[in-house]
């Protein structure tokens, strides 16, 4: 079966951008290739949808790989890879908690950092402050701090001090 992905090399790791339906299959294929150490699963709100980024490393030659998937806001469902790498369990819970990405097949998908009855997913871009939507509010530009003005040079002292000789300030 042909997997729909695009592979590129960013800095020092291979980055796969894959269709969400083939995410699971690609992850299984990478596990076959020996990528056994899960480093992180991040959720990102891209503005056009939600992205899941999985970073893996292969222990024997320290090769790094990243797998990205984009899903829409209306149906943010991605397959879970917890059974392949148990270390992503809490990261997927955090992505669900913060962004609302649901992982199909996760053993225990509930909120991890927020309370279990909390309703919103705070890291979505539609919430500007504190996780509460403020309709019609536009963030203003960040005010420039007052520019630092160097203090004026000291006044030249009177005759009495000039007789002491030149002390370097």
């Amino acid at each position, binding site marked *: 079966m042909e997997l729909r992905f695009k592979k590129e090399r960013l800095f020092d790791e291979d980055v796969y951008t894959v269709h969400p339906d083939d995410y699971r299959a690609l992850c299984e294929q990478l596990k076959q290739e020996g990528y056994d150490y899960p480093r992180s699963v991040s*959720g990102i709100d891209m503005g056009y949808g939600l992205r899941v980024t999985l970073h893996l490393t292969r222990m024997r030659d320290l090769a790094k790989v990243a797998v990205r998937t984009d899903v829409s806001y209306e149906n943010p469902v991605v397959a879970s890879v917890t059974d392949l790498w148990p270390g992503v369990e809490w990261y997927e819970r955090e992505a669900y908690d913060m962004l609302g990405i649901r992982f199909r097949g996760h053993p225990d998908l509930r909120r991890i*950092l927020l309370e279990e*009855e909390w309703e919103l997913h705070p890291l979505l871009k539609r919430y500007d402050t504190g*996780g509460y939507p403020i309709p019609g509010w536009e963030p203003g530009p960040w005010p420039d701090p007052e520019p630092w003005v160097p203090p004026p040079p000291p006044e030249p002292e009177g005759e009495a001090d000039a007789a002491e000789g030149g002390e370097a300030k």
Partner: protein
Amino acid sequence: MSTMSLEPMPGRTDEMIVNMGPQHPATHGVLRVVLGLEGERITRAVPHIGYLHRNHEKIEEARTYPMVIAYTDRMDYVSGTQNELPFVLAVEDMLGIEVPDRAKKIRTMFFELYRLASHLVWMGTAMLDLGAISPFLYTFWDREIILGIVERTAGARMLPNYYTFGGVRRDVHPDFFKDVADFLDHMERRMVDYEHLVLESPVVHARTIGVGVLSKERAIARGVSGPVLRASGVAYDVRKAFPYDAYPDVEFEIPTSPDGDTYARFWVRFQEMYQSIRILRQLVEITPKTGPYKGKAPARIKPPAGERYRAVENSRGELGVLVVSDGTDKPYRVKHRGAAFSNLQIVPDLFVGAKFSDAIAILSSLDPVFGEIDR
């Protein structure tokens, strides 16, 4: 918050469900573990975190890049500048900023000083959990010396906000190298005492050997990093695997232990302290005493659109940061990967079947700091 996530199992009346709550002297912070206890043996364990959640990631989306450095300090608050480094490195990669050699060495010196400080906190609190009340005060005195050294240069003790893009914010204090050399002499004498108190104590042996064994495959699959991973036999250290700063210029070893039990984790952290002292000694020799402490960096930090994941070896393990930039002067998304977050996932695995005081010993050997777990 739902009070119990464990339902009593039907038909079993001898299991007691106990809440080892967020306020507890031995959980190293705000961790809540709901335990199913059968006498002294733990049958089920469900950890709950999030009591220290301060939503760093959302806040940092509204701050410019130099402001974010001040926020990253607050994650693993016992490790000070160690938390700033992955963010700084990621943005330097994205912008292509050159860091001068002296600045790299200064950054590495602070990094290792904070590793010593963090391991001293760990040692004091681990012995406190095991019942010995005196080593806590000795280690915190040594930590005072480190924090005093940092304060003379950076201005603050625990959360110095000292690294910046291109190097460090200000030059080191003229007495810095002498202070560090004196401290290393003092520390080497103290390490002998600590070894007698901690590693050679028969009570510590009885409490930690064979307790909480984590196998190599389970450790790798769980994404565990740092001393916990190295105590299970895997020689993975980000300083050697994906080197940064001045680590290619210094010689050091990665201590590993094949056992995987709590004593191995104690031992590996001890050896890491020795290696830190060794690195610091080399750096005191080879750092140029004068020279640039900061390279050229643009006045407005605006990385090109893209993302970069960068990790460093924190005292707890692999501390990583994923910086997503959209070309403006504020980051689009900063995701922090805390080392202790991954390490804490093995708590249900290790607690089940252990006795309750073993659970305390295991938790102290995992060394969680909740700033980095909950962010």
